[in-house]
Each structure stands twice: as structure tokens, then as C-alpha cells.
């Protein structure tokens, strides 16, 4: 055991001091940061969309202009809320001006928020009112410019008849010109079959087209309401069916599914994804380490000190330790990022941590993760011991990777019915048991299945580690051409017992 632990420690240190490991460690967080920052950066870097409306029906140009102004105010309000959370004095604001506090600290959106903003006098007035509640030395707020900008139609365009319209439109539309789109609302729009036209040139501005269509639809609905019920308030249309997520097995007395409940449900799925990710990340390193040990005869020295089983087990434990460290650092990074940079991040972290601690499934999740690592690492170590070069290993890696990532294909079906026949059946494929069990655990699979799955996982991990040690012992000193993939599989599952080195 002492030798195994020594090998494990050495392998762990060797693993975590590799340049590739350190790069892999920062790659995922960097990718997440880039993926989350990119849309915002793209939005901030996108020039405003300017449009005009030739309104032959009447009323629609005003509706579109107002909607553009409201959208601009909403974007500014969202930025202002972030600014107040970061630099404001919310307690003082709440005490002295509850209405303003509700506007800038609450989560109201849509028409109620618009009305509240209007009631406070608009963005400029809100900025002025907030000044006493901003900490001294805080930077000035950076409020975004309007994204959709309504411009009055150029006189020549407004006057143009059907024959001259296209020529006029060409003068105003496109890159480097004054307008991105021209909306023509014909007479009888909304009461006959007349269609509005959306003229554009150059790159497609899908966001602008969507905005125009949504706003015209709203306007049509309001007109229809006015015709059907003269005098009725337009706010009658601001209704939607609210569905409250409840779960009788939830922790709260109200059984309402909180953010923490959702995290508890879906975090294990994330962990299963990470398992596959860590395996893919480390597989090449595991294999190439064995191939290198073979080629420079380190393996001979090692096997003159320890048995193949001790060596393999040490390697597996070292790799598992490095993978757990990877996981811990990623989780730590995520917690730090959410805590430090996300609005309300501290609350989110505390709620998830509380939910995680109270869920009671984490020891089992950890077992699944470790068994999964050992199972997949055993396979890749056996491949490394068969190959004399990285090129040799490629012949095995392709099919093995397909086998490893296969569970991802059925994940959507699994999420819709985590305890159904498919999920239950897949759980009993030994090399996938850890992966599917991780998915199913939050959905309360039968206790008997959990117990049996634990036994299957542990037995599979031990069996594959033992078989991998046999393959390792039989092939690691060989410089012969590696066997075919089928022979490798048979060796790994114990059907082919031609290995000659006695285990001890």
C-alpha cells in the first residue's frame, strides 16, 4: 500500500505540474468567461439600428418611435440597476424613497417598470434623484446608447410615389447610409389584408426586424382591443399565465422551487458533463505518459520496484487526484466569479451551497465521479501500455472516445424522464453506471437501484483496474505491433487470458 501511495503521489505531482494540465485548468474558465462576455461585448460593439417609418395608415410610426424609446430606457434602467447594486447605498435609499428603491433595486420588468420609470420622470430624473444614495468616489454610471433609433422619414422619401420609392430608398439604406431599415405601413393595415413592408439593404438586421414585427403586432392588438371595447385600457393586454414551480419533496414549507432547488437538481448533470470533460482532457496525458515510460525504459525500473498492479493503481489514484483537483479548482473559480462579479452572486452561492449541503446526495455523487474516473482512466492506461507510440494509440483512441461520449447523445431524453425505462436500462451498462447515476440522483431513483448501482460501479472500477494492470503487465515491455482493437477489448474484459506476467 505504501508503494502504491508513493506512486500515486508522484503521479499526482507529475500530472499537475504538466504545462498541458495548467493550460487545461484555465481553458474551461476562460471559455466560460469568453462565452458569457461575448454576447455583451457584441451588443455593446454593435452600432445602433436606425429606421424610419412611412406610415400611410397612421399611428404606427408613433408606436414604433415610442417602443424604441422605451427599449432604450429599459436598457438604461438595467444598467442603472447594476450600477446601484455595485455603488449605491440600498438601505438608505429604501428608507428614504421606497418607490425609487423599488424601481432600481426590485426585479420589476415590462410595462410596470416602464410606468414606474415614467412616474419617476424618466432616466435623467432618476439619475438626479439617485445622486444622494451613491457612495462617494463611485465612478459615473455608464449607460448604454439606444439600440433602436427612430428617425423621421426623409422628406423626399415621404413624398415619393410608388415609382420613385425604390430609387429614394437606395439613397438612404445600407452600410454607411443614414438608415438600416425603412418600414412602410400601407393604408388599411390591420383592417384589411394589406401587409407592412420592411425594406433593408446590406447585412440582415434580424434584431431590428424582430423589434419592428413585435411592436407592430402589439399595436395591432391594441387597435383590435380599441375597436372591440372602446375605452378599454391597453394594459388589459399585459397578461400572461404564470406557472409556479412546486415540488412536494422540496425543503421549503411553500414547496416553491427556489433557485437553490433548481441548482440541486441540475448541478449533478453539470458534474456528469465535467466527468466526461475531465476524462477527455486527461486521457491523452495518461496514455502518452505510459508510452513515454515504455520508450525510455522507466517502466522497467518502476517494475523492478513495484508490482504492475501497484504501479497501475498508483497511476490511477494519481490521475483521479489530479482530476478531482481540476474539478475543485473549476468549482472554486465558478464560485469566485459568481460571488465577485454577478449581481446577487453572494446570495446565489450561499443558496446553492446550502442546498448542496442539505441534499444528502453528494457522497454518492462523489463516489460516482471517482468510480467514473477510475473506469475511464483504466481503459486509457491500458491503451497506453499497448501502444509503442502516440500513432499506435490513435487506432484505439478514436473508437474508445466514441464509447466514452456516447451517453451525451441520450441526455435530452434522459432529462425528460430520468427514472424511465431508458434511463434505468442504461444505468446497468457498467461503464456508464457512474454517468447515468449522477444524472438520476436528484430525481430520487429507487434506493435499491442506488445501492446496486454503487456495487456495480465499485466492482467495475476494481475489475477494470485489475484487467488494465494485466494488459499493462503483458504488453508494457513489448515492442511488438499492438494487437487489434477487438483483441484489446477481449483482454480488457478478461476473455483473452494470454497475458503471461504473474500478478502480485
Amino acid at each position, binding site marked *: 500500500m505504501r508503494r502504491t501511495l508513493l506512486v500515486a503521489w508522484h503521479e499526482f505531482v507529475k500530472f499537475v505540474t504538466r504545462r498541458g494540465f495548467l493550460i487545461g485548468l484555465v481553458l474551461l474558465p476562460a471559455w466560460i468567461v469568453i462565452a458569457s462576455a461575448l454576447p455583451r461585448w457584441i451588443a455593446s460593439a454593435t452600432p445602433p439600428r436606425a429606421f424610419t417609418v412611412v406610415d400611410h395608415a397612421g399611428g404606427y410610426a408613433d408606436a414604433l418611435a415610442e417602443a424604441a424609446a422605451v427599449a432604450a430606457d429599459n436598457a438604461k434602467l438595467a444598467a442603472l440597476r447594476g450600477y446601484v447594486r455595485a455603488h449605491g447605498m440600498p438601505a438608505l435609499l429604501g428608507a428614504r424613497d421606497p418607490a425609487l428603491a423599488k424601481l432600481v433595486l426590485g426585479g420589476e420588468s415590462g410595462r410596470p417598470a416602464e410606468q414606474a420609470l415614467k412616474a419617476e420622470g424618466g432616466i435623467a430624473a432618476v439619475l438626479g434623484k439617485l445622486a444622494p444614495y451613491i457612495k462617494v468616489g463611485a465612478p459615473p454610471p455608464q449607460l448604454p446608447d439606444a439600440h433602436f433609433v427612430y428617425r423621421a422619414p426623409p422628406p423626399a422619401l415621404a413624398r415619393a410615389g410608388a415609382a420613385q420609392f425604390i430609387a429614394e430608398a437606395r439613397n438612404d439604406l445600407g452600410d454607411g447610409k443614414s438608415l438600416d431599415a425603412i418600414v412602410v405601413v400601407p393604408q388599411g393595415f390591420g383592417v384589411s389584408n394589406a401587409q407592412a413592408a420592411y425594406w433593408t439593404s446590406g447585412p440582415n438586421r434580424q434584431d431590428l426586424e424582430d423589434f419592428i414585427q413585435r411592436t407592430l403586432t402589439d399595436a395591432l392588438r391594441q387597435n383590435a382591443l380599441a375597436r372591440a371595447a372602446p375605452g378599454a385600457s391597453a394594459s388589459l393586454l399585459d397578461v400572461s399565465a404564470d406557472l409556479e414551480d412546486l415540488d412536494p419533496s422540496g425543503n421549503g414549507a411553500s414547496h416553491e422551487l427556489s433557485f437553490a432547488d433548481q441548482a440541486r437538481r441540475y448541478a449533478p448533470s453539470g458534474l456528469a458533463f465535467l466527468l466526461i470533460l475531465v476524462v477527455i482532457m486527461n486521457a491523452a496525458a495518461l496514455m502518452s505518459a505510459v508510452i513515454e515510460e515504455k520508450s525510455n525504459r*522507466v517502466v522497467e525500473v518502476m517494475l523492478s*520496484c513495484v508490482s504492475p498492479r501497484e504501479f497501475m493503481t498508483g497511476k490511477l489514484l494519481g490521475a483521479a487526484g489530479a482530476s478531482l483537483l481540476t474539478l475543485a479548482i473549476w468549482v472554486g473559480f465558478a464560485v469566485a466569479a459568481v460571488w465577485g462579479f454577478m449581481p446577487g452572486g453572494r446570495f446565489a452561492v450561499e443558496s446553492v451551497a446550502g442546498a448542496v449541503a442539505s441534499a444528502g446526495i453528494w457522497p454518492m455523487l462523489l463516489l460516482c465521479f471517482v468510480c467514473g474516473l477510475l473506469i475511464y482512466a483504466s481503459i486509457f492506461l491500458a491503451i497506453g501500455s499497448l501502444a509503442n507510440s502516440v500513432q499506435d494509440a490513435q487506432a484505439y483512441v478514436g473508437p474508445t472516445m466514441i464509447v466514452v461520449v456516447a451517453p451525451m447523445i441520450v441526455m435530452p431524453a434522459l432529462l425528460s424522464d430520468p427514472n424511465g425505462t431508458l434511463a434505468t436500462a442504461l444505468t446497468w451498462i457498467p461503464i456508464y453506471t457512474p454517468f447515468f447515476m449522477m444524472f438520476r440522483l436528484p430525481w430520487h431513483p429507487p434506493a435499491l437501484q442506488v445501492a446496486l448501482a454503487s456495487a456495480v460501479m465499485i466492482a467495475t472500477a476494481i475489475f477494470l483496474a485489475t484487467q488494465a494492470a494485466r494488459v499493462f503487465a503483458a504488453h508494457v515491455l513489448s515492442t511488438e505491433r499492438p494487437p487489434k482493437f477487438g483483441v484489446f477489448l477481449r483482454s480488457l474484459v478478461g476473455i483473452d487470458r494470454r497475458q503471461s506476467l504473474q500478478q502480485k
Partner: protein
Amino acid sequence: MSVSALELSGIGKRFGTFEAVRDLSFTHEKGRILGFLGPNGAGKTTTLRMLLGLIVPDAGTLRILGEPSAKDVRDRIGYLPEERGLYKRMRAATAIAYLAALKGMDMKAARARARALLEEYGLGANAETRIEGLSKGMAQKVAFLAALAHDPELLILDEPFSGLDPINQQNLEMSIRALARAGKTVLFSTHTMAQAERLCDRLVILAHGRKVFDGTLEEARRLLPRRARIGADADLSFLRNVPGVASLAAPGPAQPYWEMELKEGADSSLLLAACFERRIALTHFDVSDASLQDVFVALAGHEAKAEAAA
């Protein structure tokens, strides 16, 4: 209590259709140095791997330090493979300490021992240098120290002189002698005859997987006749008739002297007497035993020829 560190009896190993080692038997006494000689592909490394328990023989039995398998006495054996066998990114002191710890030493003691050995062998300043940053000679020395750090009873060295410059070869020879004086048993494989001649108490020569010689250096030399070489500006072919001369060769481009193979017990002074009788002025005269190189070439070459004929 057995005095043999190694006892091999009828050992054989086959890889597919290739017979790497065939019916190999020899013993090696404790506290002695055994040279394991043979040309490339003779089966030396395969035999060493069988001794170390890295591969299992197909036939025969072996005992190492009194046990049937090296696995039972791992901690009492030190091993140096031909290509150093060290992790390239490890530091010298760590590499030695790690292997010593795997051989049963306490890690703290192993670290101290590694430092002490590196100092003793003039590598103290390189203790924290990665193996990949050392010269080939230095790395070989570190690998040698790693093999002996845990104070093993038996040292198995596979081509230990390979790649070393003459000074480092001499230093390594001195180290091996010192180990033998300290009571350690040493087995080293080589195809460099000079070191074997200087170091070994006993030799085993392999060719094509078979043992072709097992004995002392003197016994090896006695396998070939003594040679006499005489230089003179005269025809010495009459020496063929001198009693005790087995064969005679005239000088040639590669050999400036008349060369004679002498029968066992032949009196070389008869050659001088015959020349003086004819008043021939000699420019050179020497009589020598066969070198190990000669024996090796004769044995390994003969075996190769027999193999080819079969």
C-alpha cells in the same frame, strides 16, 4: 545458507517463433562481479528481465538471493537499465530518493541519502537539476546512484558503460569495484570486453540465446592458444617446424610480425633459440595469452556460424 546470489537452471524464453534465451544455466556467488557478455541480440536483456521478474521464463527455474522470484526480494536488488530509466522532468535528488523510497527506505532518509550520494559522486551542485538538463554521463551516474541508494545486496546493471566517456567509465569501474569490496554482488551486461576483463571475477558469454562460456577470465583465455609474434627482416617460415608451434602466419598489411599459435605447454624459448641458431636479428618478440576479445569473437563468431549452418 546458500552462497549463491543467482542460480539459473535451464531457463528459456520464446517470443512468438523467436527463441530469445535457450536452456541457460549458471550460478553467481555472493560478493563477486559477474560479467554477462554477448553481442547485440544475444539474449542478455531478456535474461536480466527474467532475473528481475519483469518477464516470466517459459522453461527452467531460477533463484535470486535464495528466493524463486525477484518479486520476493525487490528491496534487496538494485537495477540500472541500459537507457537510464529516469523520469526526464524529475530533479536528480528527487529521482534517487523516489526510487529508494519505493525500495523500502523512509522518504526522509531516502532524501538525505540521495543528497549524500550526489555529493560523494561530485554531483552535489546538480541535485536540483532536472534529469533532462544533465549531460548523458551525469544522467547515467544519477541512474547508477538511484540503483544503489537503498544499499542493495545485488546490483544488476544493463550496459552500465554505454555512452560514458573514458573518465566516467573509469570512475564507474572504481565504484563497481568498491561495491564488490563492500560485499555487494554485481552482475553487469556488456559487449565492451575491456571493462569485463578488468572487472569480472566470472564471465558468462551468450550468443544467440545460448550460453557459450561460463567461467573465470583465465579459463576463458585458456580456450584459445597463446600467441607468439616475432619481427625480423628474414623469412621465418622455418619456425613452423619448431616443437609446440600449432600454426604460423606471415606478416601482412594488418599484422607486421610473424605470428604463431602455440600448443598447450609449448616452450616459447625454442623459437628464440631457432632464430639465434640461424643468426637472424630480431626486431620484435612477444608471447601473450589470448585476449577476452579474441575469445569472445571466437565463441560468438563460432556460434553465429553454427547457427547459420543449422
